[in-house]
């Protein structure tokens, strides 16, 4: 299985993602944002970081970079595109997934582990995963998911909510919402479910000694689903 990780100026989780993808069997290539062509890929990842120093709005500059034209075409023809953290911000700015990511409600940079309830398993990302709750890491300043009422209705009607912030038992309540996101949304799909944007970092949870292994679970499942 082939994957591509896009590096933008200011990306800083691109190499972590490379390590994670390779560990679980992907043949990964790093792709520079100024390249026009996307290598043949089964999965394209927009990694976390601070592309273009978060100038203007997080992800807004990166969403207009050369490679994004190819990424958008790839996604529109059914290709799998996953955006993590700043990658999620780039996805919303490019219009591949609906909504925006605002400054966290309490103006804090949040860096901690969170529990996430998988809301929809009828897609290549979460199909066949046994757990209903995953523990991933978040580290962001702008992860407060927001969309208009009409968009929210559409997202819910189309089952586009991928994961919600919850407690260990999977309860989705306001007190487990770290950043003020509407409906505790931590990740969403596009309508067709081939594009996934999420704030949490699965690539930081692939080592039993350093973190946890829920990321391993996710990537193992993902490559098996793509095969």
């Amino acid at each position, binding site marked *: 299985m082939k994957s591509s990780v896009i590096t933008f100026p200011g990306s800083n989780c691109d190499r972590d993602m490379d390590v994670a993808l390779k560990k679980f069997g992907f043949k990964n290539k790093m792709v520079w944002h100024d390249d026009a062509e996307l290598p043949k890929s089964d999965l394209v990842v927009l990694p976390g970081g601070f592309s273009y120093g978060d100038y*203007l709005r997080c992800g807004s500059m990166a969403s*207009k970079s050369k490679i994004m034209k190819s990424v958008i075409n790839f996604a529109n023809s059914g290709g799998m595109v996953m955006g993590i953290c700043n990658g999620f911000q780039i996805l919303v*700015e490019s219009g591949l997934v609906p909504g925006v990511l*605002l400054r966290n409600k309490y*103006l804090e940079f949040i860096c901690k582990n969170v529990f996430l309830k998988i809301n929809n398993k009828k897609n290549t990302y979460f199909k066949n995963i046994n757990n209903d709750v995953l523990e991933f890491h978040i580290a962001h300043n702008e992860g407060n998911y*927001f969309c208009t009422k009409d968009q929210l209705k559409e997202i819910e009607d189309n089952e586009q909510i991928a994961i919600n912030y919850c407690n260990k038992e999977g309860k989705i309540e306001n007190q487990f919402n770290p950043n003020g996101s509407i409906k505790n949304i931590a990740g969403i799909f596009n309508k067709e479910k081939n594009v996934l944007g999420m704030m949490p970092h699965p690539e930081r949870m692939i080592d039993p000694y350093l973190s946890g292994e829920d990321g391993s679970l996710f990537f193992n499942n993902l490559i098996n689903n793509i095969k």
Partner: protein
Amino acid sequence: MKVSVIITLKKDVLDPQGKIIHQTLDGMGFNDVNEVRQGKYFEIDTKENDQKKAKDKVEEMCKKLLANLVIENYKIIDAQ
């Protein structure tokens, strides 16, 4: 020609930064403030000398990059 644009958050969108600025002003003794909303201001110096054309071009820039229309409004306030 210089075109000036302001970008503001839409009414229903939470503005935590504006809120903190309001609180700080309050702490400084400016107690008659009802609300603070933070926005952005751009000054775009363009080669275009026709006012209408320059405004149209900047409007396109607002829609495509400068503003995110899900949460923000833009207003061209000056072109000369």
